[in-house]
């Protein structure tokens, strides 16, 4: 049996996605039930689908000293770091603890593979990368975390977690372990994924992409809409910021079933959920809101809805917000952690946008429209290819289970 963990303080957090830059823009879009999805105007060849594109990511210019890192993924990271005063919070933590005592732990599935794709589209006459693309540091999965550590001037542990669509949820667990062991005093966690041909044509090849805006948990759902996003959170010990919202727990588990479809009984997802509840010292009935993985793929939504039905009472509200942002893949964990924290801060249960004809498998917990109610405890589910499952538990400041 797991020991109940000492909560961590979330002293800053932010998200930038198709519905806007920063927390206030996200809250507005959620309140207005306004989707950020648009017809695909991104891929290098036509593909009929809808995407969650962040306007202006291509126009971000990195400072000269960081220009070697320039690519869409790192530009979106830079944009994301500049929202909600996140940089200032990190600077203050750095002054308090020292650069070597703060880790950078980021999740990504795409990293800057879009830049490698571009290099292949315009190879030079000898068949090699063009001179401006000969930047080894961006043609590797660690591009994002290495860039962010450099940009923030942090010198602690620096790790990329790349477990497909659970990546930026799992980094909260990495941070908690390192803080508990005294390896660090604080951690910048989060993740960034950007639109690129690999994911658009890859998910299309798997027949998982919808030709219309995605409809999570709808009876007629027919696939995902791919999005992009950047999100970050700063985690510190709870005694350093008792007034901050809390990370109460986390759970991680493996399906051991299939590379690209979930376990039919949601075994890994349920193990991750039980693990998160146990670590948080919570009973399922204490959970007010769950931000679901809810991708709008046939299988994921069927399995996840059944899990909600068997694990939670109707008073626990549940919804997917992929209809707003699209599936931001490796960034989904941090974007939806931010939405769970907005739910706590503003008492807003976001409606499950796109679910106009609910799948009968969805029980009474589903919030199809926005609801206003106090939220003390919110969970966020994130599941990835390879049967990789994570669940995070958040609570308002001062909450004790």
């Amino acid at each position, binding site marked *: 049996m797991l020991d109940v963990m000492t909560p961590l303080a979330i002293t800053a957090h932010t998200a930038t996605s198709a519905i806007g830059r920063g927390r206030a823009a996200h809250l507005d879009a959620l309140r207005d039930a306004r989707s950020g999805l648009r017809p695909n105007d991104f891929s*290098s*060849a036509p*593909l009929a689908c809808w995407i969650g594109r962040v306007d202006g990511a291509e126009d971000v210019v990195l400072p000269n000293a960081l220009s070697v890192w320039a690519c869409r993924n790192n530009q979106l990271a830079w944009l994301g770091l500049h929202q909600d005063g996140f940089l200032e919070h990190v600077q203050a933590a750095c002054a308090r603890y020292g650069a*070597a005592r703060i880790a950078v732990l980021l999740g990504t*599935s795409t990293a800057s593979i879009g830049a*490698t*794709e571009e*290099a*292949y589209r315009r*190879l030079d006459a000898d*068949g090699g*990368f063009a001179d401006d693309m000969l930047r*080894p540091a961006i*043609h*590797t*999965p*660690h591009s994002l*975390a*290495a860039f962010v*550590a450099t940009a923030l001037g942090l*010198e*602690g*542990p*620096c*790790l*990329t*977690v*790349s*477990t*497909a669509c659970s990546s930026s949820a799992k980094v909260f*667990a*990495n941070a*908690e*372990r*390192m803080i508990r*062991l*005294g*390896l660090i005093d604080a951690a910048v966690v989060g993740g960034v994924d950007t639109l690129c*041909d*690999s994911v658009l*044509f*890859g998910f*299309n*090849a*798997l027949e998982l992409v919808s030709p219309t805006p995605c409809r999570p948990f709808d009876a007629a759902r027919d696939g995902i809409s791919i999005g992009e996003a950047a999100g970050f959170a700063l985690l510190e010990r709870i005694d350093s910021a008792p007034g901050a919202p809390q990370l109460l727990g986390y759970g*991680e*588990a*493996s*399906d*051991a*079933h*299939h*590379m690209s479809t979930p376990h039919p009984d949601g*075994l890994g997802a349920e*193990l991750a959920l039980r693990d998160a509840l146990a670590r948080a010292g919570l009973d399922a009935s204490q959970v007010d809101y769950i931000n679901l993985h809810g991708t709008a793929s046939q299988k994921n939504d069927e399995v996840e809805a059944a899990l909600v039905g068997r694990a939670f009472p109707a008073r626990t509200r549940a919804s997917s917000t992929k209809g707003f942002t699209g599936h931001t893949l490796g960034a989904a964990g941090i974007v939806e952690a931010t939405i769970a924290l907005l739910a706590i801060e503003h008492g807003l249960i976001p409606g499950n946008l796109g679910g106009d004809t609910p799948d009968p498998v969805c029980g009474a917990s589903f919030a199809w429209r926005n609801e206003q109610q106090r939220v003390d405890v919110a969970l966020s589910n994130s599941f*990835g*290819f*390879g*049967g*990789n499952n994570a669940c995070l538990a958040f609570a308002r400041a001062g909450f004790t289970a």
Partner: protein
Amino acid sequence: MSALCIYVEGVGLWSPQLADFGALQSLLGGAMPVPPPGRPAAATLPPNERRRAPESVLLAIEVAGQAVAMSGRDAATLACVFASSHGDQPITDYMCATLAQAPAELSPIRFHNSVHNAPVGYWTIATGCHAPSTAVAAQHASFGAGLLEAASQVLAEQRAVLLVCIDTAGSGPLGEVTGCHEPFGCALVLAPEHSGATLARLDLQLTPACPDSPLEEPLAGWRGGNPSAASLPLMAMLAGVRRRCQLAAAATLGLQIDMEKVA
């Protein structure tokens, strides 16, 4: 920070020159070990999966299987930390080349095999492992950063962890940029306490960035050809050479490792 103290129960190793950890021990003892066949056996995979599996999966499962067998533990009970600097480079090369020429023809299987956690996904499926599993990267410090993450899981969760670190050889135009000349993989089974299977105790300490420990030839040359081979100073130490080594854990962070031989 006090040192992180962990126990090694199993070691796996595969490169074009070394079939396993025993081959490294015999090489360091002055013998000439017989090189393995060109393709890792990866016997833990079911035969049909083995035929189709990409190189990164075969390499990871080969070294993982060796380390777990040496530890005597049940693979299903081990949390998994799989590290790689570049993932499966032949697949990345295929994906980027296909996307540049005929994106609609991209293979769905190669796409799902392109995720960084494909090797750990196949491993958990093959062994029925429901424990937490992760796939990590840290450029040239992937082994050191992976070891730090594995050690933090061992100690924070008080459970045994399987650490795997592999990189395939580079391929195509990308291969010229990554500079990986040949494949290399290694694995450790790490535990929080001494047991009958303990081979060595490791004390890990974070330090400012430091140069990697020197290595004798031919190990030094092998280290230059693959980022996962940055693990070689620790592997050589486990094989009985020296008692202390230093690895990079990040661009700005070093890891000092002191060993006490138990077995």
